[in-house]
């Protein structure tokens, strides 16, 4: 029997290759850089920032810019003061000092306007620790009159950090690097890198309801994305208990933070609906005719990232229509809880970046838009460009969450042609998709606690 290890360790990739000259590779890299910078300028820094930050900025059933609910809900009484026993110093050393109000402890690269300040809060409290041999820690919570003010402030900080990251990309001293964060209702994380030596302030903000929690800590490793992410992960771990306690600032308070749903209580709708009903109208609204049979569902992905399957899904259903140039694919997934459904949704939208090089002068350009359906919805529309010329074809991914169910819709239309500019065509396609999905989303009420 052949030894697989021996085979691998003596793997011969074949004769010498004929790679592109290094100068041509650098020219391609310069084009990528110029295109990224142009997107930041032409598209508007705010627009790029909105795409560059984790899409969690738009998470939650109510974004600051969303229209009012069709049926007016009773006004929410938001907590305006931080409880005396709020565990702000959880997992911080005993010598941590606590004070009312807020005083910035880290250094913002792009000035004070780049960072969070506690302006506009009804109450703020700060816990600060200064280590003797290692970096200190600063943690502050600020409460706003309502969740809208808090969300607006977090969006402002997110956009400012992303804009600063673009602005300082070529800087040799002091720049900002963004990192991934997924906590609370929405969150943002970044590093203020102070010098080539790699010293940095890792900053993470989390919003729950009408409160924002900011953690910042001094660390090393600036310039290495892995080290920055490790810093953010450490912050996430050390402040997990504090974020949990922020349920007091959520719309339902801490008692209602799980929406009454637990893994032990799978009852949803009228009676127990553990599986997707056989007569669920998943295919309603799809065109008729087309080719026979189905092909495997596309897997959402872009920018070198793909979203894996959802092994935690309780049940799945699939409907598809296709012809020679177009596929419309719908997947319905149910989860044991709303939190798991929401986490999957964020994984799907989180893979999209503004631009992805495909080689040979071709680029995939993506735009992400918030939607208006269900408890949460979003759309990503992508198109290809070759040497700056827009190719026909649009690729649409839409995701809608209702209760503990997620509807994932993908429309791949290779022949989609448009005479308008591509941005307008993208929004038209997005609207078409959401309109097509409306009857399915209406039927998803069966996956909510209230039922249909």
């Amino acid at each position, binding site marked *: *029997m*052949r*030894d*697989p*290890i021996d*085979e*691998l*360790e003596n*793997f*011969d*990739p*074949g*004769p*010498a*290759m*004929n*790679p*592109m000259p*290094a*100068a041509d*590779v*650098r020219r*391609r*890299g*310069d084009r*990528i*850089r110029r295109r*990224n910078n142009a997107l930041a300028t032409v598209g508007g820094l705010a627009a790029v920032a909105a795409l560059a930050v984790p899409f969690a900025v738009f998470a939650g059933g109510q974004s600051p810019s969303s229209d009012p609910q069709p049926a007016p809900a009773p006004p929410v009484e938001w907590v305006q003061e931080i409880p005396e026993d709020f565990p702000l110093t959880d997992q911080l050393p005993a010598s941590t000092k606590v004070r009312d109000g807020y005083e910035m402890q880290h250094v913002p690269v792009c000035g004070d306007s780049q960072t969070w300040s506690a302006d506009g809060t009804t109450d703020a409290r700060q816990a600060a620790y200064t280590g003797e041999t290692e970096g200190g820690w600063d943690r502050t919570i600020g409460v706003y009159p309502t969740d809208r003010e808090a969300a607006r402030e977090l969006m402002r900080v997110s956009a400012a950090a992303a804009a600063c990251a673009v602005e300082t*990309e*070529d800087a040799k001293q002091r720049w900002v690097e963004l990192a991934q964060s997924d906590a609370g209702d929405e969150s943002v994380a970044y590093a203020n890198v102070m010098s080539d030596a*790699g010293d940095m302030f890792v900053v993470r903000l989390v919003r729950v309801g009408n409160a924002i929690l900011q953690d910042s800590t001094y660390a090393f490793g*600036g*310039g*290495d*994305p*892995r080290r920055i992410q490790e810093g953010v992960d450490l912050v996430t771990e050390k402040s997990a208990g504090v974020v949990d306690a922020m349920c007091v600032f959520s719309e339902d308070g801490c008692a209602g933070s799980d929406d009454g749903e637990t893994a032990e209580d799978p009852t949803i709708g009228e009676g127990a609906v553990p599986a997707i009903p056989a007569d669920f109208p998943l295919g309603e609204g799809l065109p008729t005719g087309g080719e026979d049979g189905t*092909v495997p569902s*596309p*897997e959402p*992905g*872009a*920018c*070198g*990232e*793909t979203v894996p399957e959802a092994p935690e899904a309780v049940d799945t259903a699939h409907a598809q229509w296709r012809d020679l140039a177009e*596929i419309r694919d719908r997947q319905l997934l149910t989860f044991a809880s709303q939190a798991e459904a929401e986490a999957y949704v964020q994984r799907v939208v989180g893979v999209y970046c503004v631009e*992805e*090089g*495909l*080689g*040979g*002068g*071709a680029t995939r350009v993506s735009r992400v838009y918030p939607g208006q359906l269900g408890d949460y919805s979003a759309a990503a529309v992508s198109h*290809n460009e070759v040497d700056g010329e827009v*190719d026909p*074809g649009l*690729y649409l991914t839409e995701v809608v969450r209702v209760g503990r169910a997620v509807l994932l819709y993908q429309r*791949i239309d*290779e022949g989609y042609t448009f005479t308008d500019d591509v941005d307008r065509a993208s929004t038209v396609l997005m609207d078409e998709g959401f309109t097509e999905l409306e009857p399915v989303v209406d039927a998803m009420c069966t996956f909510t606690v209230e039922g249909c």
Partner: protein
Amino acid sequence: MDEREFDDFYSASFQRITGQIYAMIGNRDEAQECVQEAFARAWAHRRKLDKAEHPEAWVRTTAYRIAVSRWRRTTRGRRPADRALSAPVEAAPPTVHHVALVEALKQLPEAQRQALVLHHIADLPVHDVAREVGVPEGTIKARLSRGRAALAALLTDEEGLSHA
């Protein structure tokens, strides 16, 4: 990283990384295109590359992600394989064993194949493989163990068929 440093880095590591990506995806021309694109991105983000502890790992990871993304788009029936960045190479016919190993690797689950290539072909210790892939060391050890067993079975099957 200035132009000369980048060119030296590119010359020194291009063939090696392409061989590793080829082992991961089973297509030599595609591997070459993905590695070239990864180097182009490396130049576009050279300040980050300067700070990275392992720039070769950065390029390899980027190239692999590009390859996976392009493969998925191709199998979905989207645009055909993207234009080559350089002229295709007229390669000498591979040996029977070489073909068998590449074909066997392609039949493994992606995660096992990646772990085997990084550990046995790229010669990274388990700890470094875990860091590059972004999973715990125990997960890498399990993938290596299962991957080696599966590869051995596939190579044995192929040997039996060729001797039939």
